[in-house]
């Protein structure tokens, strides 16, 4: 027989033990994130408060001047606008396709493993290779798309030479590139739904779309939030497809924030303004993530 005091102590010891195990297991990951990412983010945020430009001597403290200059810059406003269009397009198309693929992959019985592996391939290709492939698809009279148009009696279209069409192509390439991962997230969610829920609903006379609306979507709400977050993050930070595909052009039609940040930091060598763009991107990403978590909060 244990006394209540001993029992409380045992429970407390167990709780401490569990907490300690968690900290020990999480420790390396936390140290890595703080050491690699945290340092860069803090350093970047501090740099954004100074003037660090290669053509001037010294690094004076300027407070929020870099941010003020940024929001007065037509180039930055253009990049922000283009980014929002690009991200919105990617999210809408990306979530629809991801959900569709996830549902099909979940339903398919024969060759399930093979199809899942195939669905992941775009995510495994490097961004630059994907960009080159998309360039071949859309550039020149001998590109696959233009050859199709010509075969159909239409004229070839200079896809990447027209600002709005170039943005569409870049968005499609981005969706192709990043959707497989969100498909995987949603598939994980679908596999976690108890099949008895569907059976019970069917017995009650529910139709397929009703099952989808009232069982599937609420059940995978946390995974939906994750998918939205991934599509937003990956799109706002997308750079490795756009630069080789369009270089940010024509004009500055595809110069999204990440590309603009690269231009500022590594071509203009204007480190402080580039850091300010990094902070703006970070704030946008955090805001979007919070919004998704709130939107898809389990009720």
């Amino acid at each position, binding site marked *: 027989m244990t006394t209540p005091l001993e029992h409380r102590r045992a429970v407390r010891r167990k709780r401490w033990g569990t907490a300690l195990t968690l900290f020990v297991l999480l420790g390396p990951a936390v140290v890595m994130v703080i050491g690699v990412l945290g340092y860069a983010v803090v350093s970047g945020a501090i740099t954004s408060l100074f003037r660090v430009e290669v*053509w001037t*001597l010294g690094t004076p403290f300027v407070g929020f001047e870099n941010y003020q200059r940024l929001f007065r810059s037509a180039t930055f406003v253009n990049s922000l606008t283009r980014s929002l269009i690009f991200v919105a397009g990617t999210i809408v198309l990306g979530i629809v396709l991801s959900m569709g693929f996830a549902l099909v992959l979940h339903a398919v019985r024969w060759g399930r493993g093979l199809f899942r592996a195939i669905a992941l391939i775009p995510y495994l290709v490097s961004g630059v290779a994907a960009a080159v492939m998309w360039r071949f698809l859309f550039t020149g009279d001998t590109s696959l798309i233009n050859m199709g148009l010509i075969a159909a009696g239409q004229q070839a279209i200079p896809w990447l*030479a027209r600002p709005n069409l170039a943005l569409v192509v870049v968005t499609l390439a981005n969706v192709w590139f990043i959707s497989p991962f969100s498909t995987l997230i949603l598939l994980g969610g679908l596999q976690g739904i108890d099949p008895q829920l569907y059976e019970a609903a069917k017995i009650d006379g529910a139709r397929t779309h009703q099952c989808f609306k009232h069982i599937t979507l609420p059940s995978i709400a946390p995974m939906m939030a994750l998918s939205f977050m991934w599509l937003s993050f990956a799109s706002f930070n997308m750079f490795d497809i756009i630069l080789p595909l369009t270089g940010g*052009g*024509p004009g500055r039609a595809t110069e999204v924030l990440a590309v603009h940040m690269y231009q500022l930091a*590594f*071509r203009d060598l204007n480190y402080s303004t580039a850091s300010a763009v990094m902070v703006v991107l970070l704030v946008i990403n955090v805001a979007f993530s919070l919004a998704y978590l709130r939107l898809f909060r389990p009720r």
Partner: protein
Amino acid sequence: MVRCDRAGRRVAATGVRATLWALAIGLLFGSVHAQQSVEITMWFGRQNFIPADAFETFHRENPGIRVKTDVIPLEQAVADVLRTARAGQAPDIVQVPADGVPPLALQGALYDFGPLLAKWQAEEPASYANLAQAAFDFATYQGTAHGVALHYGPYWFTYRIDWFEEAGIPHPPATWDDVLAAGRALRKADRIGFSVIGSRAHDPVWFLATYMAMGGQWVDGVPQLDSDAGRYLLGFYQALVRDDIAHPETLAWTSGEMRAAFIGGGAAQAMIGDNIYPTLNQSLAYGTQWAGSPPPPRPGGEADNRVMALGWPYLVTAGTQHPEAVLKVLQYLARPEIVAEVALRYQPTTVLPVMTDPGYVEAKPWAPDFAAPFAELVPLPSHPRQPQIYQILLDAMQDALQNPNADAAAMAARYQAQLDELR
């Protein structure tokens, strides 16, 4: 048994003593060697700039100096030098595009190489005299020399001589108006009149080479778009699109597409770098199918016509501890037999005797035709904010290509205002 133990102990003691002696001798010789051996770190901007002998002869002739090479792409060399200099780890010599000299000089990252150049001139006058003026100009900022450029490259106006002759068009075109007229006359369903880069994939150096040939001027390193030459340049780009002389996808074209169009027989004219001529000559025959010339002037701008060159100078960094050894390395790289090997397979050299060397002329049969303009190449003027100038020029170029019927004068004035803000 006791005897065995003693013998064993004696062997062990002898072994320890021998090891200690070996360590001492090793340390002594190692430190003497370290004192005698100087290591020069050199960053090349492209693998192709490294001589084929990889400093083997140099090391034989200078046993006390080791040259350690690395390849840091030209595009990132400026940023990397600044970063490593802050950590006290900058290389002794770095190769950058010439427009990287002003920011590096402004940040105090470069060594005053003037006195060592004077020493070079005094000690090896023949080697020094071999160098074109551009060799020094490319590595000098505000009167201070920071190194030397052994390679530079111009863009030549290049055209299909067979098509010109077939169509009875005099060649090479005398002005850029003639280039446009030839472009209109020579374009066909399967070929374009003029191949040009329109994308943002590169710095607008082809655009600037055309501008300089048209008589374009710079004030304090800032190009003057709002001038006769600038307005003419924008009008020229507009005409390329408006009159269907260039490809409809020009706005998305990189150097690859621009060159491929000409080399593949799909374009009548283009501005092509000297380093591409060997590749071009593998597809088309020089003199019968293709020819080149210095870019022509704009009508009325003949007096200001110049041929622009890009340079990739070797700069000595402020942190170098061995400037004398650095001088020896650069003198070695400037030797005709060393630099010729690089010039033959890659970029032309500022060591002028190489350009008329029989071996060079045999490998590059067009070289004699360009010998005179080579001696008069003009370095692209640069500014500490050159990357931003490039961005504005790309905006202007793409604006002209996207709006072929807009007022070129208004366009030039608008972008000039942006350029002037950088001065």
